[in-house]
């Protein structure tokens, strides 16, 4: 290729010359391609179908829970609590780092084994590093009369379900 001398013309300040045009075109299309690749990479890395258990749990007959009882369902990770005011469900995964908490009946508290957070029966934090109280989960009674809990739906506390 013969040596070309590139000399900007005096009026080149304003108008785009050919070299600049192709440079901008190239960089522009590269950045569009990069943005597209990022989107595709993100979509590829997020699975569309998950083989995870359903968020809605059938907790069985309400009368199988005696009053003032706290029942941990380990498979779904929820507490079903029958208080004097009615039924409610709490998420059992610690709000700190997701360890499964346990109910300590002798102390009347919920304790996390990982970093030592402690919660009241109503989910409020007593001590420890957990940033939030345990979430109250949407609970209702199905047409068949079973207690149902939606683990993905957190509700405001103190909404008891009366049967």
């Amino acid at each position: 290729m013969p040596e070309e001398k590139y000399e900007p013309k005096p009026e080149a300040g304003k108008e785009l010359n050919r070299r600049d045009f192709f440079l901008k075109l190239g960089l522009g299309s590269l950045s569009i391609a990069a943005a597209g690749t990022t989107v595709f990479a993100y979509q590829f890395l997020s699975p569309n179908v998950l083989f995870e258990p359903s968020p809605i749990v059938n907790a069985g007959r309400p009368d199988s829970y005696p009053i003032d009882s706290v029942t941990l369902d380990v498979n779904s990770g929820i507490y079903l609590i029958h208080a004097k005011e009615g039924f409610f469900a709490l998420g059992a995964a610690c709000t700190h780092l997701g360890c499964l908490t346990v109910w300590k009946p002798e102390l009347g508290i919920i304790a996390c084994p990982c970093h030592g957070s402690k919660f009241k029966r109503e989910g409020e934090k007593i001590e420890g590093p957990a940033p939030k109280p345990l979430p109250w989960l949407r609970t209702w009674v199905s047409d068949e009369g079973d207690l149902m809990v939606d683990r993905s739906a957190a509700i405001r506390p103190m909404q008891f379900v009366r049967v």
Partner: protein
Amino acid sequence: MTDPPSKDKKDFVTGVDSNARKSPRRVVFVTRRTSAQVKAVDEDQVQTFPEVLFRALVAIEVLSILLVWIALLFNAPLEGVADPSHTPNPAKAPWYFLGLQEMLHYFPPVVAGVLVPTLVIIALIVIPYFNINIEAEGLFLQDRQSRLRICYVVAVAMSLFLTYFHVYVALVPTLIVIAFMLLAAQSSPQSASPFRRYLAAQPLSYWIMTWFLFELVVLTVVGTFFRGPGWSWVWPWRN
């Protein structure tokens, strides 16, 4: 090169810049009458092949033998199959993350799990890009009064902060390092004891890094040996 190391002499050369354009160095000066002559600083060198490679090989071999013995004598831990419905008590991360887990016990995850590690990594990366770390003057050799004042303020602030969050585990190493810093402030290159001369020569980066190392070791050891069920404090020798 052959003169013995004197005490007031520094351990390093400063201002060696890799950017030849910014700080040109004259290598040789050739006049018309003389031919070029390089006066290189010679020092005894050995060939990489075979001597250095051989030594490296021996070092790796010794390590391998050691690891093979460990692997023969101690079995890697293997617990029951993963069970999402049962959290072991206490649930511990690998040992090199137990310092982090110990901090997670005191601070919210966004501080202990994200902010602190990010800051540590950034701090490590920027070390060689600050001239204060390159020159590495003894911290209290200049502006002793004002630097001592800053040192006091930082010490009190950190102690209050750690006490407020009940992080006594991290408070102890902090106080010990501060005590040595104050000792360093009272020392000078003319001090009688060699230890105090050594302390006096230590720069700021040395103190920060030593504090970091100390905290890392203490938090990891506490997380590994002194934490039992519910992350409560236990004495490892009292079973």
